[in-house]
Structures are given as structure tokens and as C-alpha cells.
């Protein structure tokens, strides 16, 4: 079986707890905002028309103008043809009565002699804790309240209509899984809101249990379709059985589409994270066992011009506890929530038929000789599920409509100067001219479109107009002076738990990371291009053979496999595809089977390689950290915090200038990437706890390879700083 939630990403749990508290706060604020609403509803119609290609606006442009009328309108979504209608509470009853739960309880009672009755009680309690309570009352309430609140802060919510008609039909014939990208806690409410708006059945949603315990909010979320899954349940067989049966019961009976987030948690860094297979494989089991004819999986890409959580995410990524709720905080937040958050784009991808997808790879008849309650996935089914999950993530990325701000963020973070002063610093001190920025933005937009990215770029406007619009939306981060220069705004000093991080460093890091979030949104478009560019620009030779390029490309794909979503089997296809694209855009020059380095080091490759440089730098520091600290075994937390400290020291001494490398998520991915490459290996410590073992030879190989592509401090310098740091660090560790 596949575990739903890995235990290693410790920082996510920290973050989850933090965010949970914030949700409550922000939610109340939203409602409060609504109640004391006095501001006018702003509409920038010019940039947000009713129709935009296949996209339709659903927030401001409705046939029914009154929110009350709209939220109470007759709503008759399509229903699955074999669904036997039942109340939410009946789902729980059915789960408890299901053969798999009866069997599990019996088995457990035999195994550890705990009483049958106690286990049954336990099962009931779990089901109660888990159960959704979807009702139209809550949906209509949300439809009303959110309409009011969102209209104040969003210019538009766009939904693409090209697959909607098909999807509505599919909902009648097959169970449907909605798989949105997850980059904001708004996703959950937004999806239900959109479904209600476009006459799709409102989904039931798998939610992390941390939202559950909050008074009021928990039950309100339940009523809008959430059911709660504990983040960690390790080897709790009963919980696992109930969780899978609960999901499967919903899929089998097709009560409503089941929505969950493949990435398991919000992607704070704003780029897709590796899929968690627990929920997906549980949801697909009814298909594998022939209980349903097919299941349709709908990847959905959601993008926000501006995130409600932008600074929050930056703090979380740095591992900084959130400042306490205070009156001043609330007032400030009120200010934030009455700001301009631009557009939201919800893009439904073409629904994927699981049957068609698995047709060649899976033989379902292997389940014919076992009773159905016995849960088992064949090796092929596990492999195909994994592959489907990756494809869904790629489809989400493809569907996502990027904001022009992503381009601006990428540019502001770019063009590091030799002295370590990037545009970010320059723009804080001396600013960047709007015209200069517009030119860069325009250039990057062309690159983006050439490599398959989708961007929200209203027709009929100059780049400068669009730039100014997006700068207004992000006026919390940037300001535009009277001289038409763009300045980054100052961030207050930030205190960190990690003693190695001083407040000023942290403040800079927050500023960088906030920009990095938006830049990250577009990285998937360039991920293969970026890797090729890194190799080409890093080369000391006159030319590189395609073979060598491919080898290095492979090395980078393996190393960065946790930071970016790649299909392992598509390496060659991706490589050839990106080379072709680069040749067509003159980004590289190829002669016979060689890339000529000199003409291939140009604006495009340099820009792209610099965009990906911070990742490699962070990996490099991590390698250095492990190489210089000789320990038999590591905990992931120690590696990450230690590396973060080392990075901070190097940043302070001007040896490095990418502040975003302080991101804990990046470091966590780095550890896992190095595990994937075999430079760190997982093992069990004497006490049975999992621990990590650094493999110096492989680590130094990786470090050397990285150093050959990007600029890093010389090893001697680095070692010196490691020594300085070694004392306090080891004392702390």
C-alpha cells in the first residue's frame, strides 16, 4: 500500500499548524469585512471583460445581478446515473457496515486482543471525525458571502468553458475526481464556488484534519463538503481502512465529485510538488476492482494574480513563526483584504478517462479471485497510478494561466550583478525604470509563449499599460515613483527561530521569497530549457556534444526531481523537444552533433540559467554542509536547519546573494533530491527511528558537478566559514 502522507517533510506540519490558525483569522476577517462593507465595488472592466477566448467571467458578469437571487437560484447539477441518493450521514453508516471495515475490525481484534466493541467504537469515532456534511444551505450561504467579499477584492474570476459541457455530461455517466492545483487555501472554497456557478455538482473535498478542530469553521467547512483526513496516521490500520473505504464509497456511489489535492498540501513555494498517491490510489480502487466502469480525472489549474497568503508563505518557507494576532495586525489585515487582488483563473483541463489511460498497462482481472474487500493493488496499478498522478500535475501546470506579475517577479529577481546586488537591491535603492522593465517583460513574455506557457495578456494594450496594471495590484510589494521608477518596498526586520539567521537577513529573504513565489509559478514552462541553459552557459569548452549535454541534463533532472515535476520516462522526448524549441528561437546553435557554446551563451540562456541558479546553489551549500560535518547519522531537520544557518552566514559575508535559498522547502527538496541521486541514503537508526546517512564521495561529486555549472564560492572560502560556524552550530545541534 502507499502511504498517503510522508513523515519526512517536517516543516510542512509546522506550516500547516500555523496556517490553520490563520485561516480562522482570515476567514473571520473576510466575513467581518463583508458585514462592515462600505467600500465600493471596483471593476476594471477594461482589463477584465466578460469573455476572453474560452474563458468566462463568473463573479461580476452574471445574468442574475443580485447576490441573494443568484445564491438562491435553482441549481440542478447533473447526477451520476447509478447514484442512490443518500444523506451525508449515511455515507458513514455505509462505511461502518462495509465488508472491509467489518473485516479489519475482526482482524485487529484477533491480532492484538483488544476488544471488538472498543474497536467498533473507535471506528465510529473515526468516521464521525472524518465525515462531510455537504448541504446546499452552506453552499448557498458561501455563494452569497463570497460573492460579496470577493467582488471587493477581485477584478474577475475566469473559468474556461471549453471542457465544461463535456464534464457536465460525464458527471452523469461516471464518477469524477476533481484535482486542482493547491496554492492557496482559497482553492477549496473557490472550487465549490465555481462548481456552483457553472452548474457542476458541488464536490466533496479531502481536507487536512488541522482545519477540523477550529470551532465553527470546521463544521462550516464540513457543511460545504469537506471531509477530514489526519495528516499522519502511520500504521493505524483501522484509520487507513476507514479512510480508503470512505473515499471509495463516495466514488462508487458517485454522490458527488470527489476533490482532493494531489500534492497533499498547499504548495507554498507556488510550484507543483511531487504527488502523494494515497488518496488517488484509494479513489481509483473502485475502477481497478470493476466496481465502476470508468473514473474521470479532471486536472484543474488555479492561478491568482495576487495571493492572499503571499507574505505568510514567505515567512513559512523561512520557518518563521507567525506574529501573534493583534488589533494592529487585524487592522493591517483589513487593509490587505480590501486591496486589489486582480484576477483569478480557474482552468479545467480535458477530463482524463482512467479507463483509457490504464487500458494498456493494467489487467484488472487479477482481482477476480480475491474477495472485493481485500485491498490490493497490483504492481502495474501502482506504477500506472504514479504515472497518472505526474501527468495530472503536468496538466495542471499546463492549464494554469500566469499573471504578468510572474514575469515582473522573475525579472526583478534576475540579472545579479557581480557585487551581489541584484535588481531586487537596485530597485530598492535606485529603482528600475518602467520603460526598461516593460521591455524586459515583453521579452520574457515572448519566451514564455514560445515554450508553451499561458499568460493573462489582455489584447489591445501596450506592455507598459499591462505592467502598470499589475504593479498597481502588487502595490504592497512595489511602488512606482513620480519619475516612473519602480521601487521594491521595505520589509520590517524579522526574527527567526534559527539563531543563525539575523533579522536583517531575514527581512531581505522575505522580500526575495515573496518575489520568488511569483517567479516560481512560471518555472515549469522553462524547466527543461533552464537545465539545458545551465549546462551550456556553464561550459568552459568551445562546444558540447549532444551526448554530454544529455548526460548533464539527465544529472540535473535527477537532482532536481523533487523541485520540478518531470516524467521520468520522457527524458529523451523532453530533451529533444526543448533542443528543437531552443534552436528555433536561436537560443542555441547546433552544428552536426555539437552545440557551439559561444553563440549559445546569449540573453535567453543566461537569463534562464540564472533563473534556476538559486536551486543549484542551495543544493551545493547543502552538500558542503554535510561534507564538512562528520556525523554518523542525520535527522532531516538537522540537515535543513544547519544548511540554512550556513547559507545565512555565507549570505551575510557576501559569498552568496540568492536569499531565496534560505527556503526550508527548497532545502527539504534538496535532501530528497540527493537521496534520489544516492548521495544521501535512508536507513534505520539503532533505536528504530529513520535517519539519514551522508555519502561523502557521492556528495562531493554532486557538489563538483554543480560548481561546474554555476558560480559558487571557492571551496576554501566555504570551508573557512563552515569552521567559524561549526562551534555554535554543533552546540545547537
Amino acid at each position, binding site marked *: 500500500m502507499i502511504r498517503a502522507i510522508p513523515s519526512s517533510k517536517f516543516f510542512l506540519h509546522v506550516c500547516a499548524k500555523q496556517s490553520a490558525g490563520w485561516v480562522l483569522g482570515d476567514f473571520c476577517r473576510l466575513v467581518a469585512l463583508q458585514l462592515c462593507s462600505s467600500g465600493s465595488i471596483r471593476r476594471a472592466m477594461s482589463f477584465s471583460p466578460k469573455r476572453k477566448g474560452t474563458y468566462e467571467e463568473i463573479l461580476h458578469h452574471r445574468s442574475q445581478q443580485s447576490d441573494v437571487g443568484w445564491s438562491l437560484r435553482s441549481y440542478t447539477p447533473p447526477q451520476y446515473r*447509478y447514484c*442512490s441518493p443518500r444523506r451525508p450521514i449515511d455515507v458513514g453508516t455505509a462505511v461502518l457496515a462495509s465488508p472491509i471495515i467489518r473485516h479489519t475490525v475482526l482482524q485487529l481484534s484477533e491480532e492484538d486482543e483488544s476488544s471488538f466493541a472498543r474497536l467498533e467504537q473507535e471506528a465510529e469515532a473515526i468516521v464521525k471525525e472524518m465525515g462531510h456534511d455537504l448541504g446546499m444551505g452552506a453552499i448557498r450561504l458561501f455563494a452569497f458571502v463570497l460573492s460579496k467579499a470577493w467582488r471587493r477584492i477581485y477584478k474577475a474570476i475566469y473559468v474556461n468553458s471549453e471542457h465544461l459541457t463535456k464534464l457536465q455530461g460525464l458527471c452523469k*455517466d461516471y464518477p469524477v475526481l476533481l484535482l486542482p492545483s493547491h496554492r492557496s487555501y482559497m482553492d477549496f472554497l473557490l472550487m465549490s464556488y465555481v462548481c456552483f456557478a457553472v452548474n457542476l455538482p458541488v464536490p466533496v473535498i479531502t481536507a487536512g484534519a488541522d482545519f477540523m478542530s477550529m470551532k465553527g469553521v470546521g463544521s462550516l467547512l464540513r457543511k460545504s463538503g469537506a471531509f477530514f483526513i489526519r495528516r499522519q496516521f502511520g500504521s493505524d490500520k483501522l484509520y487507513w481502512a476507514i479512510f480508503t473505504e470512505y473515499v471509495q464509497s463516495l466514488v462508487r456511489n458517485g454522490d458527488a465529485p470527489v476533490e482532493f489535492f494531489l500534492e497533499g498540501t498547499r504548495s507554498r513555494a507556488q510550484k507543483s510538488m511531487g504527488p502523494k498517491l494515497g488518496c488517488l490510489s484509494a479513489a481509483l480502487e473502485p475502477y481497478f476492482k*470493476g*466496481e*465502476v*466502469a*470508468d473514473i474521470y480525472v479532471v486536472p484543474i489549474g488555479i492561478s491568482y494574480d495576487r495571493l492572499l497568503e503571499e507574505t505568510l508563505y514567505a515567512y513559512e518557507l523561512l520557518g518563521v513563526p507567525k506574529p501573534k494576532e493583534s488589533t494592529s495586525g487585524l487592522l493591517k489585515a483589513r487593509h490587505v483584504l480590501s486591496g486589489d487582488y486582480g484576477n483569478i483563473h480557474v482552468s479545467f483541463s480535458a477530463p482524463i478517462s482512467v479507463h483509457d489511460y490504464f487500458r494498456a498497462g493494467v*489487467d*484488472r*482481472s487479477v*482481482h*477476480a479471485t480475491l*474477495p*472485493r474487500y481485500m485491498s490490493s493493488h497490483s504492481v502495474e496499478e501502482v506504477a500506472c497510478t504514479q504515472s497518472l498522478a505526474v501527468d495530472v500535475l503536468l496538466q495542471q501546470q499546463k492549464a494554469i494561466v500566469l499573471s504578468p506579475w510572474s514575469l515582473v517577479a522573475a525579472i526583478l529577481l534576475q540579472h545579479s550583478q557581480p557585487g551581489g546586488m541584484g535588481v531586487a537591491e537596485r530597485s530598492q535603492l535606485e529603482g528600475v525604470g518602467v520603460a526598461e522593465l516593460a521591455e524586459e517583460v515583453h521579452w520574457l513574455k515572448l519566451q514564455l509563449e514560445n515554450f508553451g506557457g499561458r499568460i493573462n495578456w489582455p489584447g489591445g494594450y501596450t506592455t507598459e499599460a499591462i505592467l502598470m496594471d499589475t504593479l498597481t495590484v502588487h502595490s504592497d510589494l512595489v511602488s512606482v515613483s513620480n519619475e516612473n521608477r519602480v521601487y521594491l518596498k521595505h520589509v520590517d526586520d524579522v526574527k527567526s527561530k534559527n539563531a543563525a539567521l539575523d533579522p536583517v537577513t531575514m527581512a531581505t529573504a522575505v522580500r526575495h521569497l515573496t518575489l520568488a513565489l511569483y517567479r516560481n509559478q512560471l518555472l515549469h514552462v522553462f524547466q527543461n530549457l533552464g537545465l539545458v541553459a545551465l549546462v551550456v552557459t556553464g561550459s568552459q569548452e568551445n562546444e558540447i556534444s549532444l551526448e554530454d549535454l544529455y548526460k548533464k541534463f539527465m544529472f540535473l533532472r535527477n537532482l532536481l526531481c523533487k523541485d520540478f515535476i518531470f516524467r521520468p520516462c520522457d527524458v529523451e522526448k523532453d530533451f529533444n523537444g526543448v533542443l528543437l524549441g531552443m534552436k528555433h528561437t536561436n537560443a542555441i546553435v547546433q552544428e552536426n552533433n555539437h552545440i557551439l557554446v559561444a553563440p549559445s551563451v546569449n540573453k535567453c540562456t543566461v537569463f534562464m540559467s540564472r533563473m534556476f541558479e538559486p536551486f543549484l546553489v542551495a543544493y551545493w551549500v547543502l552538500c558542503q554542509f554535510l561534507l564538512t560535518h562528520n556525523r554518523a547519522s542525520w535527522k532531516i531537520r538537522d540537515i535543513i536547519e544547519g544548511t540554512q544557518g550556513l547559507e545565512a552566514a555565507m549570505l551575510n559575508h557576501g559569498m552568496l546573494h540568492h536569499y531565496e535559498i534560505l527556503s526550508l522547502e527548497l532545502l527539504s527538496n534538496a535532501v530528497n533530491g540527493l537521496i534520489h541521486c544516492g548521495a544521501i541514503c535512508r536507513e534505520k537508526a539503532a533505536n528504530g527511528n529513520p535517519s539519514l546517512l551522508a555519502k561523502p564521495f557521492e556528495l562531493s561529486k554532486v557538489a563538483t558537478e554543480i560548481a561546474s555549472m554555476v558560480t559558487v564560492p571557492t571551496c576554501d572560502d566555504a570551508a573557512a566559514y563552515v569552521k567559524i560556524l561549526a562551534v555554535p552550530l554543533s552546540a545547537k545541534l
Partner: protein
Amino acid sequence: MLNSIEKSRKCHGKVDCHSTSSQSSVTGSLPKRRQDLLKWNGWGYKDTEFILNEKLQVELTGTRYKLSGMVLPLLKDWMLNNFNVNLDYVRPAQPEFSAADLPSPVINKPFLEDLQTSGLEHSLDCHDRLFRAHGHTLNEIWALREGSFNRIPDLVAWPTSQVEVMQMVQLANKHNVVIIPFGGGTSVTQALECPSTETRMIISLDTSQMHKILWLDEENLTACLESGVTGKEIEQRLASRGFCLGHEPDSYEFSTLGGWVATRASGMKKNIYGNIEDLVVLVRTVTTRGLLEKSCNAPRTSSGPDLHHAILGSEGTLGVVTEVVVKIRPLPECQKYGSVVFPCFQDGVSCLREVARQRCAPASIRLVDNEQFVFGQALKPENNSLVQSFLDGIKKAYLTRWKGFDINKMCVATLVFEGTLKEVEAQEKRVYETAGKFGGLPAGEENGERGYFLTYLIAYIRDMGLQYGIIAESFETSIPWDRVTDLCHNVKDRLRRECKAMGMQHEPFASCRVTQLYDAGACVYFYFAFCIRGLSDPVKAYEEIESAARDEILACGGSISHHHGIGKIRKKWLKQSISGVGVDVLQSIKRTLDPQNIFGNGNLFDAAVPISKL
């Protein structure tokens, strides 16, 4: 007849000389020139077919069936609505083949000379040969109507006894000539198709002239029958003595005892009488190595693996079944139809499952889905009585308005009760009570009876459909109880989506019924039909779709076949179904009984060619 008495010497039972002599004058229901009685290119009797009369209403011709001569006013509209057909679009069948249209016979001269010397009756007539070149699989009927044959039997032989069969087989073995046993010719698995690669002479061994009841033993309730006797004939003759066999497959008017054994047939009333494997006491099979038989008529033996089971389902690949001792039963005092309507298919399945759990199934119980229920309604004959149509209206209103049945979801279970009056009454009570627990309402005898009629007439209806460009076929499976409903849903869905994938504009007719109940599962029977307009190769399209449907069945945990058998159309799934080792076991039986592959119809699997032949 002496022959038969000689055979019965071995038995403990009494020989009823009166009975056998009285039967001896009876000629079999199937003449040697079958095409004189039966359609040469379609199902059943020549005099019976569905036609569109001058009022453009469907009418059944002839006098043989209850509906014969009646008008079915609703059927045409049902067809128009379900298939998007146009009555102007007709695909008439081609005229009867002449000798020149058919492949010329491969003649093994020494064999033919020996055969002529032996005096065994045979024919080289092209129409005799053509009639035995096919069963009733869709592609075969299509070939008759619109296509042609690459290979047909080269000679037809009509042995009249086991001894003559033994002579035939010996001759064939001696001259390396292929024998394909031919019974009723109702196969729907291409089992009768001649392998197109076969270069040897092919003899169709028609068993229809072996149709005697050799003896009947009232004490032990057994009878010894020759294998060429048809089901209808058996029942008629046994009934005259106050007995019945009770084996009624849908094809029982034409299919023969030998064919039932060779395909592991299943009868509609198996709940009382059992399937063919439960009915046989002793089977005699002529193989190239001699006669395979048991030594006594004991009801059960433990003597190693039961060799009957090597023959049951062997599909003519091992030898010719010549004589079978079967169990018989006294004729039931009372037979009654019945029906129950359910709000939805799932409820009906739950009810059937409960009936099976309680083991209180009547002689037959079948659950048809909504599509077939509606189809059944379309077969209602013209109704001239105002009262009747008024009552029908009330019934419908009661169900839909009062009981809240959805006309697009409801389905019906049809029932046959048999036994003494008291037994039938008790059975009815129990079944209707159980049905009530699942929302079922008794819906009268007429609905039940119509359901069973449908199954006898369905193949005639198919012929009419072909006329208007609708092709139709049935297939079946068996499956554990917990997967029955899902299987039905999934297979129907698969049929619909495969049709869509082929670019068909209109949804096909995909329908199923649960036809047999067992302790551990059920048999499910599918009807599938679609309009072929616009398809370049309709038969190929059909075969691809059916193949996909079979994949779906296996994926859902269903079997390769419940009673139709493997033939040639399901060979590709045999290994998956019985494992590679299983196929090897069957191969080794084949090798032992028929090393030269005389019974080379190519069913089940491709017989390994002996090394010496290579």
C-alpha cells in the same frame, strides 16, 4: 432398434419395449435436407418470420408460435426509436448460393471409395454442405446474407447409430480426413466454422438421424437417448409417457442433446432439473481410439477425475457424442408463469441474491433490465379489447404515480413455477414475499410469459433487424454475486463507449438479464444491437466491440462463458481463463484421444501438431 436393446443389456433398468417400438416409427424433427424445413440463411423455420405488413406494422408469419399471425404494433416504433433506422434503408439478403458460388469440395478419393463401399449415407450436394458450414454466430449469418465462405464441409454424412459413427470415425482416421460433428447447428461461437487453413477433406457428421429414445427406465427415472435428438423432440416424446427432461436452453427447438453435452449447455429451468452436467448419468463418445464410456449407470462415482467432464464442453474436438443416459422427471402437475417489477435493476439483483441465499428459486427466475423490459413491452400483440388497454393504463398509472416507479429505471423479473399445485402456491408466496422486501411488486403472468417468448423469438427478430441494417448478437457470462450489478453496468457502458469510439452517431441497444441463479453467483446474458449505417465493415466492428466487452467482463471478475462455450471466438482468452498448465492438460487429452487431429474443427485451442507431421 436391436442395437439399442443390445446396448441396454449393460443396465440394471428395465427395458420398456413398448416405448421404444412406439418411438421407432417417429422420424426426427430435423430432416436430412434441413433447408427444406429451415431457413438456409437465417434462424428457424422457413414459414416463420417477422415482416412489415402493408400497414407497415410488424407481423409474425406462420402458425408455430403463440404470436404467429399476430401484429405487434409497437415493435416498429421501438426499432425506429432505438436504432435511428430508416425503413427506406434495407439490406436484403443475397439470393441463395448456386454451386458455382461455393468452394469446390476437397475430395480424398480412397476415403470416398471406402465410404461408398460401406454404404453409410452421405451427400456431396452443395446446399447440404453449405447448411453445415455455419452456426448462428453473427458473422456466419452475415456471410450467408451478404458475403461468402472460404471453406465449407466437403461432404455430409448421416450415420443412424453409434455403430455407424464408429465406422465413420475409423474411416476418417484411416484416411486422415477431418470430422466436424454437427447437431442442431445453433452454435453462436463459430464452433461449426471450418478452419480456413484446413487442407484435408472435411466431413460434417450430422447426428440428426440418431434421434431415438433407446430406452426409458421408470424405476430409476433415467432414459438413454441418441445424441441427435432435439430438445423439443425429447420433451414431446417423454411427455407422452408422463415424463420430462426439463432441459430448456433458448435454442431447445433445434439444439440437440449431443450439442448440449459438447458445449456444457444450461437450461432455463436448471433450478429444478439442473444443467446438462447434472442431468447426464452416462455419456458414450466415439473417439479415434474407440468408445469412451463408463461401466454403469450409478448416480455418482469416485474413480479418478470424472471423464464425463473431459467430454462435457469439448466442443467436438475429441469425438462424437453418440448416446447419453439422462435423468428424467415425472411431468409437473402445474406450470405457471409470473413476474415481479422492481424500481431499479440493483433492487432486482438484491432480490435475486436473497432468493439464491434462501435457495427458494422457482424453476426459472430471470431479471431483465429496463432496456429489455421496454423491449418486451414493444412485443405486446395488437390489443383490440378496450377493457384490456384500460386496465393496462391503470396498471401503469398505479406503478408510476402511486408506487413511484420510474418508467426509465424499473425492471422486471420473470418467473416459471413448476411442481404440484401446492408447491407452486408455496413457492409463489415465498418468492413474492422476498421480492416485496426489495420493493418488488407482482406484475402478472402475462408479463412473465412474454419474457420467455422473447427469448424464443429473439433470433427471428434479429433476422428482421438485419433486413434494416441492425446487427444484433448475444453473449453471456457468469460472475460472483457481489459483482453482478457492476458487471452489468460496466459492460453496457463499455458497449456504448466502444460504439461511440467507432464513430456511431446513435447509441447502441445494450441490455442484459440475469438468467441463472447459483449459490455463489449468477449468469448474466447480454443483448447488443446497433445500426450499421455508415460503417464500412460492420461485422469487424461488431467483433471488436464484443471483444472489448469480453475484456470488460473478465476485468470485472466474470467468466469467459457460462454456457455458449469457447468455439473460435473466445479462444484468445482461454489461457488467461484456465492457465497455461490448464491448456497443456487439455492438449494432452486431445493428443491421447485424437493424435491425428481428426476432430479438427479448431475449437477451444489450436491443437498442437504432432511432431511427426511437421
